[in-house]
């Protein structure tokens, strides 16, 4: 049994009378890579902010392992241009030694930017610096909000590969938000499909056949994602589990859907 890092028990978030996150049940364990997908306004960012403790929840419970160290890579980071800041100084603010900072930047392949101003980085470079900053703190749980945003297609695949590598070397759990279904399906262990409530969750191979997934993203998208996985063994997936739609944890949609 893997160690559960964060457990969400029937968590709801209501903002201004509007339900943003609706009765979500979720466990992130050490070694997991969970990707949250869903349409705009589905409450994805709110959900991970609740996990981080940045968003207070309206009901339910969030249990975090005592002493849980969080690494957070936010979605849009706007560095105030009035504040002069180099990558070096930004990394040093974690309290880590210069050697460790450089090692972390090396792992995300941006060591050459050590002395650069943080204001002159490209989108992809900023993401890699932010990931390096998260990992220099040796997190138990890495939380990423659309890490591939502003990164070109080749860069995206590399980024997901990097996240997998970090999961293995840090032995941490990962939860992230993504929009790119194809990459998610290829690079994730487990997918959580959110539309306020959890529509469906499970391994990518299962989820692309899930009626709730098909309903949310449309037949066309679901088929294209499924096609993408045709090289997989359809009787047994990579996890060794038998692929069977009945095994996905699907909630029943409300009558309004």
């Amino acid at each position, binding site marked *: 049994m893997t160690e559960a890092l964060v457990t969400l028990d029937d968590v709801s978030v209501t903002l201004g009378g509007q339900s943003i996150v609706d009765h979500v049940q979720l466990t992130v364990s050490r070694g997991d890579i969970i990707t949250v997908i869903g349409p705009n306004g589905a409450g994805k960012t709110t959900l991970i*902010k609740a996990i*981080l*403790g*940045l968003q207070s929840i309206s009901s339910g419970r969030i249990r975090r392992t005592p002493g849980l160290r*969080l690494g*957070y890579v*936010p979605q849009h*980071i706007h*560095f*105030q241009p*009035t*504040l*002069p*800041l*180099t990558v070096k*100084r*930004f990394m040093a*603010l*974690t*309290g880590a030694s210069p050697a460790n900072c450089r090692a972390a930047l090396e792992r995300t392949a941006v060591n050459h930017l050590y*002395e*650069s*101003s943080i204001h002159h980085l490209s989108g992809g470079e900023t993401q890699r610096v932010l990931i390096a900053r998260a990992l220099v*703190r040796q997190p138990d749980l890495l*939380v990423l909000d659309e890490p591939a945003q502003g990164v070109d297609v080749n860069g995206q695949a590399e980024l997901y590969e990097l996240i997998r590598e970090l999961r293995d070397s840090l032995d941490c759990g990962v939860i992230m938000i993504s929009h790119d279904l194809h990459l998610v399906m290829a690079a994730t262990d487990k997918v959580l499909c959110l539309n306020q409530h959890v529509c469906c969750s499970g391994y990518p191979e299962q989820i692309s056949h899930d009626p709730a997934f098909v309903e949310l993203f449309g037949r066309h998208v679901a088929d294209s994602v499924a096609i993408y996985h045709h090289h997989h063994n359809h009787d047994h997936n990579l996890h060794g589990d038998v692929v069977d739609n009945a095994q996905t944890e699907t909630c029943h949609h409300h009558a309004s859907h």
Partner: protein
Amino acid sequence: MPPIDSVLDDFFWRALIGGLGVALVAGPLGCFVVWRRMAYFGDTLAHSALLGVALGTLLQIQLSLGIAVVCIGLALLLVILSRNRSLATDTLLGILAHSALAIGLVTLSFMPDVRLDLTGYLFGDLLAISRTDLAWIYGGAAVVLALLGWLWRGLLMSTIHEELAKAEGLPVERLRLGLMLMFSLVIAVAMKIVGVLLITALLIIPAATARRLASSPERMVGLAMIGGMIAVGGGLSLSWFFDSPAGPSIVVSAFLLFLLVYGLVREQRHG
């Protein structure tokens, strides 16, 4: 150089020493005003200082203490009111800034026994600075600088990205309160130098000037301190030779320095 005691007998030296003390704390605090886009917030707190003068006079306590108390009260009120999102922050600040100033003026007018030099409070009265004022300035500066040094990493991190800082376990709300407390103290001691209406200028202008030259936050703070001190020296000289009002002269010097730096120094490639 004459012995320190006789130096303090001279109003000009007292003004210079007091002004330099204020520039020392205005530098780092001014940087936070610039970084956190709090210029309007600083202005609001400064405007309420007049109410502090009224309170101090009424209760017959040190005016700096009265000002600090009112500023802290207003800062807390702002934190509470800004949670209610029905009004935009700048509207809220505009209401409070001018209401506080007006209430201060009205309250002072109700105290017939008090003969107040209103111009002195609005634009500063640096040349009338007393030894007690000097003690308040340097006491306040010591407290603020010690607090800044202690909270530096957290303050800087929560300024760069508040949510990232919070996710990393920094107490961002308490840090913000600490910063407001320091603002209140600085306004209380700086008021004597440049007055209610010009305090924000003394905070922002040296910091903005320093931005052009700095490649790290710490260097920006150091340069803002130096810039503020140059402005104080320049302003007092202006006042000495041309008999211009000291507070506004300091702000004018700070502005000239700003123009000079932005005219001569090209934008930094690094930093």
